[in-house]
C-alpha cells in the first residue's frame, strides 16, 4: 500500500506537468509567431530571413523548451502508467490551451469554440479508454 502512494503522486505530478507544459509551449509558439508575423517563403533569401527570425525569438525557444518538457514528462509517465489512464487525463490540455490563449494572448474564445473544445476533450477521453493494442508483434 505504501509503495503505491509515491507512484500515484509521481503519476499525477507528471500529468499536471504535461497538461501545463504542452499548452504553454503552444501558446509561447503562438506568441512568438504573432510577433514575427506571417512567414515569407519566397524568394529564398526571404525564407532564410524568416528562419532567422523564428530561431532568434526567445518566445519560440521557450515554447520549444516547454514542449520538450511536455514530451519528456509524457514518455516518463508512460513508462509505468497505462496509456489508457494518461491519454484521457491529457485531453484536458485542449481546454488549457484555450484558457491560456485568452489569458496570455488576449484571444476571444466564442461559446461555440468552447463547446467544440469540450467535445474534443470528450472524444479524446473516449479514445483513451479503448484497448491500446489490437495487433500482434511484427
Amino acid at each position, binding site marked *: 500500500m505504501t509503495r503505491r502512494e509515491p507512484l500515484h503522486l509521481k503519476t499525477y505530478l507528471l500529468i499536471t506537468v504535461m497538461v501545463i507544459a504542452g*499548452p504553454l509551449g*503552444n*501558446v509561447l*509558439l*503562438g506568441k512568438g*509567431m*504573432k510577433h*514575427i*508575423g*506571417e*512567414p515569407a517563403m519566397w524568394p529564398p533569401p526571404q525564407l532564410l530571413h524568416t528562419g532567422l527570425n*523564428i530561431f532568434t525569438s526567445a518566445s*519560440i525557444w521557450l515554447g520549444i523548451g516547454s514542449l520538450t518538457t511536455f514530451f519528456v514528462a509524457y514518455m516518463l509517465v508512460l*513508462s509505468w502508467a497505462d496509456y489508457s489512464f494518461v491519454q484521457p487525463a491529457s485531453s484536458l490540455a*485542449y481546454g488549457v*490551451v*484555450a484558457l*491560456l*490563449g*485568452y489569458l496570455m*494572448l488576449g*484571444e*476571444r*474564445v*466564442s*461559446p*461555440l*469554440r*468552447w*463547446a*467544440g*473544445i*469540450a*467535445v*474534443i*476533450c*470528450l*472524444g*479524446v*477521453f*473516449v*479514445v*483513451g*479508454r*479503448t*484497448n491500446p493494442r*489490437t*495487433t500482434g*508483434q*511484427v
Partner: protein
Amino acid sequence: MKVVGESPSLRPAEVAKVILRALRVPWMWLGGGMMAVAFFSLLGALSIYDVSFVVPVTALSYVAGAFGGVVFLREHVTMQRWLGVLLVAIGVTLVFLGKN
C-alpha cells in the same frame, strides 16, 4: 517503431540501442521528416490564426491516425474508438464554426 520493437528497459544503454536501430529504418526518417513539416506548418498557422483555434484543430490527427492505422498498419479500430474519433471530428467542426 513496430518494426524496431520495444525497448526491454529504460536504461540509457537500452534506449540508445533502440534509437540506433530506429535510425536504420527508412520509415523513421520519413516519419521524422513529416513531423518536421508538421511543426513548421504549425508555426505558419500560429502566425495567422489564434492558438485557441489552431491547437484544437490539430486534434484532427486522431481522425487521420485512426484511418492511417487501419489502412497502413492493419489495426483493428473498435466501435468505441470510432465513436471517440467521431466526437473529435464533431468538436473540430464546432471549433471551425466558432471561429471569429
